[in-house]
């Protein structure tokens, strides 16, 4: 009993500590490249993510791990094309990218009731992948697949498995209301930096950074 109580206490203290540090930059003297998890999604999500990656310096974000939902056929293909173009343009020397699929928490239109079970399944799969990857940076922009991954990344911070910085860019298609993923990550204070592309959202969610349209 004492052990359980102590563990819970330590967990809670760590949780508060991580929440306190969320959003606070940890400046390093000469930052090393950071292993990066990039979450892709169907519809405009992957296009928006590729657009963002094209302005980031790839030697800072390496090795890169791309994850897409198992039912999403096109996103990983687009990511491969992007990585190939980096090699082709000699932006990077060797290929340091890996491409993985994850079970989906919820299909578009799926009832929220059955989604509870599929989310649990997806979370277990996500845990397996995250233990393997242990990224230092997580980039995501809205698909439901990012929720289990971000929650686990946050838990890894609390438990002390791996410290990471979680960045969320809400989709350009979200003008007045956040997506469900965005709302969860915002309310739970899981993202270190939360970006929105329209001023209406920044007014509603003041902790978000308004960055204008990216597309």
């Amino acid at each position, binding site marked *: 009993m004492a052990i359980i109580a102590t563990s819970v206490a330590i967990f809670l203290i760590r949780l508060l500590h991580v929440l306190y540090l969320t959003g606070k*930059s*940890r*400046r*390093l003297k000469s*930052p090393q490249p*950071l292993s990066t998890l990039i979450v892709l999604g*169907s*519809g*405009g999500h992957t*296009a*928006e993510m590729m*657009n*963002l990656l*094209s*302005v*980031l*310096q790839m030697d*800072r974000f390496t090795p890169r791990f791309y994850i897409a939902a198992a039912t999403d056929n096109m996103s990983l293909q687009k990511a491969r094309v992007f990585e190939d173009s980096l090699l082709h343009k000699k932006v990077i020397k060797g290929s340091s990218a890996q491409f993985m699929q994850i079970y989906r928490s919820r299909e578009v*239109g799926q009832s929220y009731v059955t989604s509870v079970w599929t989310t649990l399944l997806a979370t277990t799969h996500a845990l397996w992948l995250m233990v393997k990857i242990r990224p230092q*940076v997580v980039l995501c922009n809205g698909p439901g697949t990012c929720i289990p991954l971000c929650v686990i990344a946050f838990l890894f911070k609390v438990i002390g498995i791996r410290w990471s*910085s979680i*960045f969320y*860019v809400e*989709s*350009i*298609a*979200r*003008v*007045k*209301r956040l*997506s469900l993923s965005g709302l969860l990550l915002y309310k739970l204070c899981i993202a*270190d*930096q939360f*970006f929105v*592309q*329209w001023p209406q959202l920044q007014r509603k969610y003041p902790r978000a*950074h308004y*960055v*204008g*349209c*990216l*597309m």
Partner: protein
Amino acid sequence: MGGTDSVSLKRIVFLTVGTTSFDALVKVADTLEVKQELTRRGYTHLLIQMGRGTYLPAESIGEDGLLAVDCFTFSSSIADHLSSASLVISHAGSGSIFETLRLGKPLIVVVNEDLMDNHQSELAEELADRKHLYCAHPQSLHQVIVGMDLKSLLPYQPGDATPVAKLINRFLGFPDD
């Protein structure tokens, strides 16, 4: 010397539903009144990309005095079709919208009312308010085509992801470029 360059005489209306099924839009595009209005405005071809939809529009080579109609389900990249179009009618997917706007093509976005939780209409309405495109529902498409003044549309300035990159780099302690 060949005949006239038929490509330059073509004024193509390209209708796209992306990877979705949007029969309501394809059906209304296939109606006489829409085809008559497009023909009246000088369009010669209507090319319909119908995606996962099941409604098959009637194809025509234009022998009935109306614009020619052709259709297909998917293409690996609709960029070529967008480039050769004089007018684009698209579902409200952000990918289609921005791909079209970045090419500087006049655009009518049609919102699918059958979708649950239709957040897509927010984007279409916002861009319509900013006069970058026209926004319609399947039932109002004809009206919008009748009343549209494409010259009044404002060009869309492509966005820029570098502000986000800067913030991310600073947060991680990387030096500014």
